[in-house]
């Protein structure tokens, strides 16, 4: 289909139904109430009990009234996360360690799987079944590149070893 710059846009179903020329310069994103002038003094909802460790931003005085309890911090990644939360959200010292912790957590997750007797099927987890069905050429290309790189690395190592002996 080619691009047609239609001048009959007003025929498009619903054209202009939400236009409001009186509302200038633009549409309100918030219904101003002035409540934010009361700062952090609204009537808070009941507090969810902290049954697991919850890290909270140091830009707020306490945890929010509700929070998620999935995956409390643990292991080495947990140590890194606790350290990260000593810095405000404005600091790279907060966010970059969290990204590092995420990567450490991937390794922890792998060993946790093994500890539970589960050998992760990386190919299935990466959705290679779908890739094989819809992008076979791409999969074969990746396999070929991987094989060439692996073969090259092995050849290089063998050559160095042989050179060392000589």
């Amino acid at each position, binding site marked *: 289909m080619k691009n047609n710059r239609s001048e009959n846009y007003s025929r498009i179903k619903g054209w*202009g139904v939400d236009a409001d020329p009186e509302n200038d310069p633009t*549409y309100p*994103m918030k219904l101003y109430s002035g409540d934010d002038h009361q700062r952090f003094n609204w009537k808070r909802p*009941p507090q969810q*009990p902290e049954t697991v460790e919850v890290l909270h931003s140091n830009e707020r005085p306490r945890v929010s009234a509700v929070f998620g309890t*999935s995956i409390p911090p643990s292991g080495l990644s947990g140590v890194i996360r606790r350290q990260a939360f000593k810095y405000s959200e404005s600091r790279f010292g907060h966010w970059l360690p969290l990204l590092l912790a995420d990567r450490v*957590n991937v390794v922890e997750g792998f060993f946790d799987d093994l500890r539970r007797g589960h050998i992760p099927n990386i190919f299935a987890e990466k959705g290679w079944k779908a890739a094989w069905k*819809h992008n076979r050429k791409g999969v074969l290309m990746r396999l070929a590149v991987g094989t060439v790189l692996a073969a090259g690395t092995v050849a290089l190592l063998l050559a160095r070893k042989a050179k060392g002996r000589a």
Partner: protein
Amino acid sequence: MLAMNYRGPRRVRVDHKPYPEILHPNDAIVRVTRSCICGSDLHLYHGMVPDTRVGTTFGHEFIGIVEETGPSVQNLKKGDHVIVPFNIACGTCAFCKQELYGNCHESNPEATAVGGIFGYSHTAGGYDGGQAEYVRVPYADVGPTVIPEDMDPDDAVMLTDVAPTGYQAAEMGGIRIGDTVVVFGAGPVGIMAARCAWLFGAGRVIVIDHIEYRLEFARHYAPCEAYNFRSLEDPVLFLKKETGWLGADVCIDAVGADAAGSALHTITGKKLMLQAGSAIALHWAINSVKKGGIVSVVGVYGPTGNLVPIGNVVNKGITMRANQASVKRLLPRLIKHVEDGYIDPKALITHRMPLAEAADAYHIFSSKLDNCIKTVLIP
């Protein structure tokens, strides 16, 4: 119960997890009937969002049937089939009172810059998401809305995020009658934003992307003009020429951190993580809008920082408006728009897959295989 389980960048599977519990008097437990994979889930899937812990269940776009309610829940009852907005909102804090339901201050302890979001890392509250058989829904009296009897559940699930986010993108653009609106990104949200731009009286709508099948979809669905930036030497120059050399009245960034189109942004933002994802779509939006124009941002970025031409924002006098969609605020209007036939959210759904095949579904969506626009997982 079965639930999607994040194992690391580009690795997910479906495992058995414990049934969720009521942890707060205003909680509900919802049995999920449909759950989408969102474009912003791909930022998590690609490992770009800090504090995404292994074992987390993603999914912030879901509908389901109320199975259990906490003692203080009054507005929902067991058996109700509900739309659950992706933002978790208390309804009582200063921000919720101003209808900024995407900015609630009582739903996310881990970060003050973002409210709680289902299944969107601990940076968004550490909640398990709806790509599961069951999910805990906090503040059940506030967000969840009963699906109207005659509404198709496929439309309903698209009202949890895609339609409100696309609509709010157009709304924040402050579109005037006859305006030229450029939308960067032909994903589901971008396509919806293009469609909604007409509702505000746009005179011309242009979508920019590089995935040909999505551009073709946008041309039919929105309907609008759609251009592949790979075939344009310089999309900004192209748009200047197309708009009488002044620039568009409104530009919308509906891409966010995973944008393609710049080697510099891809390497520094997506590979080396030196910035919070690639911001090339926002860069183009700022440079393509007219002086005094409006840039509306709904694309999701990480919390650190990005390379964008902020000097041009100053020099051109651009107004930038951005937010997570305030789903609860928009739901009544959008339900009516679906009923009136002004928007057809379910038409964006191209793939319906069992929850058990989540790994394949993520791969198809992420790699844009099989002409995928939007995937729904059925538990």
